[in-house]
């Protein structure tokens, strides 16, 4: 007997935990790649630290930390790239307006984006405040004045920070930047494009707050190409080779996606998204993006929607997955405590975790080329390898519903009668409604009228007056000629009722009562009372039946309180 092994259904190896690493950085500040020439691929993280303290660039190898370098500015994004075949690979750290290039974790080069002209009023004000001509409050007022003319985002980054800071920070800013105010835009994101397959070198692409996108030669840092977008790019993804043909997908802060080519002159977004885009990746020939309404969208490069996945919880980020040996590709969607792998048609895999996730990164780590590095919120890291025997043959549909939901409703066929009726309704809708309302009113009137007659004549079994709410029920037992009549009375009035009589009325030729008048001294509220009398059918051979009435009467009331009308059953003959 072979035991069914659940292992092959799992696509990833058991996670190996790295608990002491304390990684607290966003997913953009993580890169996988070798640090020295021809060495293993390492995990490189740039820590933003806390309030300017503890800014570090750390490198992990295997399950331990290998190297560490200090950073000067908080990093926005880091990138591993190659700019020379012969020497060591580089790490680019985007921080503020500069890109810092590290080789073997040693600072190698610093590239700063060219400054733009500063608003003259703003510049003058800063100079004045540095010389002590105006105080910080006046500077604030001047800057506010300037924002009335130009957009807030068009001010220098220092001024923007200044306007949003409290007094102490404002003073610190004046002291630090007072005389040398510049307008170097902050870098929002960086990426790389292969120059050509033959050379194997990378072209660096950077995007700035001033809506510029620069293609930089990674050796000389000269601008090879330049775009100016109408809004601020926040994510850029490159595709292709710079020397042959390339695409650059740019997601801007206002949830537009541009598709840029070398010969693009007219800037028009290919995707305009109604909700906020939270993550964008490239997967083969697809653009995959998520929005804050928990939808993952697969779209072609031209912006045509291929498919959408509606998720039940928030998607933290997307990560591309490509397994070269089997040509498997998927997108890894990261949720609060699980990851899911999708392709454009199916859900391929789900992995659950015990702890909330921060980010994942897929790529080569050490010598394993398909490793998933999972970082948890608590700063620990798990490393999993895609199994060699795993595949995506077992796949399920997106948002798999329970089997009961798949049951088809039996919708009856449209009959001719139905269609005729529908046609009639379409044609005469108003008239039908009017007729219905009219008849309904008449019916209600009829009911009210009949009910009113009942109330007036007090022939109801339930008393309709609110003063004396008494209910009567009568049962007849026996086959005849003698019958037993039981009368049950239930009063639901608040007070006890006194001095009433139960009177039995019938055709005197047909029936004879033992006690035609039953005195009722008290009816306590809510208590059922039963009274019994015998009655005899005088002449069963006539087989005549008539009605018998039981009236509850009060000495001081003209009309009976309640009445029960009993249609008597046919009487049998006497036995003798």
């Amino acid at each position, binding site marked *: 007997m072979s035991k069914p092994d659940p292992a092959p259904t799992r696509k990833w190896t058991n996670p190996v935990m790295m608990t002491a690493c304390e990684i607290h950085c966003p997913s953009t500040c993580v890169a996988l790649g070798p640090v020295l020439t021809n060495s293993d691929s390492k995990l490189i993280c740039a820590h933003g630290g806390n309030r300017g303290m503890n800014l570090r660039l750390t490198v992990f190898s295997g399950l331990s930390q290998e190297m560490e370098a200090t950073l000067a500015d908080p990093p926005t994004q880091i990138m591993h790239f190659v700019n020379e075949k012969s020497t060591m690979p580089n790490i680019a750290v985007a921080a503020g307006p500069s890109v810092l290039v590290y080789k073997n974790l040693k600072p190698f080069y610093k590239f700063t984006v060219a400054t733009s002209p500063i608003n003259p009023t703003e510049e003058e004000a800063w100079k004045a405040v540095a010389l002590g001509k105006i105080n910080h409050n006046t500077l604030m007022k001047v800057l506010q004045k300037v924002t009335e003319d130009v957009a807030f985002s068009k001010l220098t980054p220092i001024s923007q920070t200044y306007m949003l800071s409290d007094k102490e920070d404002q003073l610190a800013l004046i002291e630090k930047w007072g005389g040398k105010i510049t307008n170097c835009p902050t870098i929002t994101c960086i990426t790389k494009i292969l120059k050509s397959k033959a050379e194997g070198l990378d072209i660096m692409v950077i995007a700035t707050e001033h809506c510029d996108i620069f293609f930089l030669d990674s050796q000389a840092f000269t601008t090879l190409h330049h775009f100016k977008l109408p809004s601020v790019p926040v994510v850029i993804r490159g595709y292709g080779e710079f020397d042959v043909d390339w695409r650059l997908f740019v997601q801007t802060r206002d949830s537009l996606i541009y598709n840029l080519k070398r010969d693009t002159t007219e800037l028009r977004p290919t995707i305009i998204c109604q909700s906020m885009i939270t993550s964008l990746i490239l997967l083969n020939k697809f653009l995959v993006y998520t929005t804050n309404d928990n939808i993952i969208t697969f779209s072609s490069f031209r912006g045509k929607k291929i498919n959408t996945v509606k998720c039940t919880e928030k998607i933290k980020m997307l990560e591309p997955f490509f397994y070269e040996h089997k040509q498997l590709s998927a997108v890894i969607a990261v949720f609060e405590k699980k990851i899911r792998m999708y392709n454009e048609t199916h859900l391929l895999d789900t992995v659950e975790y015990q702890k909330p996730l921060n980010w994942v990164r897929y790529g080569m780590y050490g010598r394993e080329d398909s490793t998933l590095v999972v970082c948890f919120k608590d700063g620990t890291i798990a490393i999993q390898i895609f199994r060699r025997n795993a595949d995506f043959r077992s796949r399920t549909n997106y948002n798999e519903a329970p089997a009961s939901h798949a049951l088809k409703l039996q919708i009856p066929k449209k*009959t001719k*009668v*139905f269609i005729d*009726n529908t046609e009639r309704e379409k044609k005469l809708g108003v*008239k*039908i409604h009017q*007729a*219905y309302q009219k*008849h*309904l009113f*008449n*019916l*209600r009137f*009829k*009911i*009210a009228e*009949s*009910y009113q007659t*009942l109330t007036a004549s007090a*022939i*109801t*079994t*339930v008393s*309709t007056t609110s003063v004396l709410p008494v*209910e009567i*029920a*009568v*049962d*007849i*037992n*026996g*086959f*005849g000629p003698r*019958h037993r009549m039981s009368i*049950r009375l*239930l009063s*639901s009035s608040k007070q006890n009722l006194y001095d009433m009589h139960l009177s039995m009325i019938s055709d005197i030729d047909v029936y004879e009562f033992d006690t035609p008048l039953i005195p009722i001294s008290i009816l306590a509220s*809510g208590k*059922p009372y039963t009274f019994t009398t015998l009655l005899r059918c005088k002449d*069963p*051979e*006539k*087989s005549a*039946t008539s009605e018998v009435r039981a009236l509850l009467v009060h000495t001081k009331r003209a009309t009976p309180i309640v009445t*029960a*009308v*009993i*249609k*008597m*059953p*046919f*009487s*049998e*003959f006497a036995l003798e």
Partner: protein
Amino acid sequence: MSLSPLRMLQVCNSSLWQPELLDVSFVFLDPSFDSFLKMADGPVIEFTGFMKAFRLFRENRLSEAEVVCTNLLRKNPLDQATWALKMQCLSDSTFVDELDNEDMGLAETFLEQNVIATSARPGTSFQRPKTTAKGMNPIMRPSTNAGRPLSGVVRPQTSFKAGSMDQAVRTARTAKTARAVSSTSARNMRLGTASMAAGADGEFVNLARLNIDKYAADPQVNRQLFEYVFYYVNDIRVAHQIAGTASKSASFEDYYWKNQLAKCYLRLGMLNDAEKQLNSSLNQRKLIESFALLAKVQNRMDQPVAALKTYAQGLESFNEDVTMLTGIARVQEALGEYDLSVDMYKRVLDVQSNNIEAIACVATTHFYDGKPEIALRYYRRILQMGVSSAELFMNIGLCCFAAQQFDFAVSSILRAQSTMTEDVAADIWYNIGQVMIDVGELEYAARAYSIALTHDPDHSESLVNLGILKHRDGKIDESRAMFSSAIAKNPLMFEGNYNLALVCLAQGRYHEAKNLIGKALEAFPDHEHCKRMYENMKPLYESV
């Protein structure tokens, strides 16, 4: 809470009660003479004497014919022809088609000696219909007071043998639901006694002094005498004596007398003897009446499968006969096999497209099967045939309402309300109440139910639904009282028992609730909610 469902009104099938064509054995007149007289332009010829009586009888003016006969007999009491004609007149005036006379008294129901299998397999007995049959669901299709599912037409029918005799005797008796003690008791007697007092000369034939052997052997008068005794005097014992003597004198070769003997045995509850006579009659000559009577006997013996077989044999001899087809349809309907029943009724309609019973039953089944538009077409067909009654308008209104043709619905209901007779008033007001609930006018619904209850204080469905409305208003005690009086009037009712059980459960009266749920499950064994409540309550009992 379980609301009682809409009740389609049962259409009164007038054709059921029409007398059979009379079998007059002696013909004095050439029928063509009649037309000759009419064609002649001469003075109107006045008939006198026996001829006048006979012509009046032929024109179905029975009471006038009887008066003429009486006068003739005063002059000549020994005139046998007149004597026979008077008997014929009297028996025709109280004639009931014996095939449709199915009233069973309490004694027949509970003191049954002809029960063959006390615990029959499901589907082979009226007492145990197949539980899988779709019809046995009182929520989908309401039942009559006798516990049978509601059918399309009023028809005398057998009842479920629910509970014990003790319980049946204790149940409150009402004009509509009360069953006679036995079929030979007062209720059947009244047919005979109704006009007896009117005769000035006292009883027409003094049976005690009649030489039965002499007249029963005389083939000229014995049939009239038998019918007079059987239908008019309703003295089954003497009728049996006449039939026996007549059969003997015909040397047991007359199928007519065998059938009459079977009718007597049937009335006397001697079902096995009746079956023997009918089988013998059928060996002699195959007649529709014999097949129908045999099937009726088998139904009385609670052997629906045998009855179906008899009907099938009848169909072999009489291809596509309406009586046989209707019989099969009725048995299948009583067994809850609605599809088969409707198929049969459709066959009836192929043969006789104006058969009201078939149209009404097909319509009712369609209505409760969720196809009100189709039911509507059938009811309209009845209307086209010239039948116009409050029941029919109410049914059309309900069908329109269920099919969402609101403009016709309410107007038909209004018409039914304005033309209704007292015997259907309660049902009509009840249905108005149901429509008001569907429209959302709960206040008006409660009023309509109250009106229904004044027309018929025993209308248990109205009591239940009014109880639910009271319960909704928070008047728990009142609703309890209504449910319990509904049960008192109709102990077989599912909704009353179930709703009262729910109220009891909410009040913590578990013992009462358990008993009530037991009763509700008897009425509706497949009710999932009841079963679950029963299961939930079991541990409470076992733990005590």
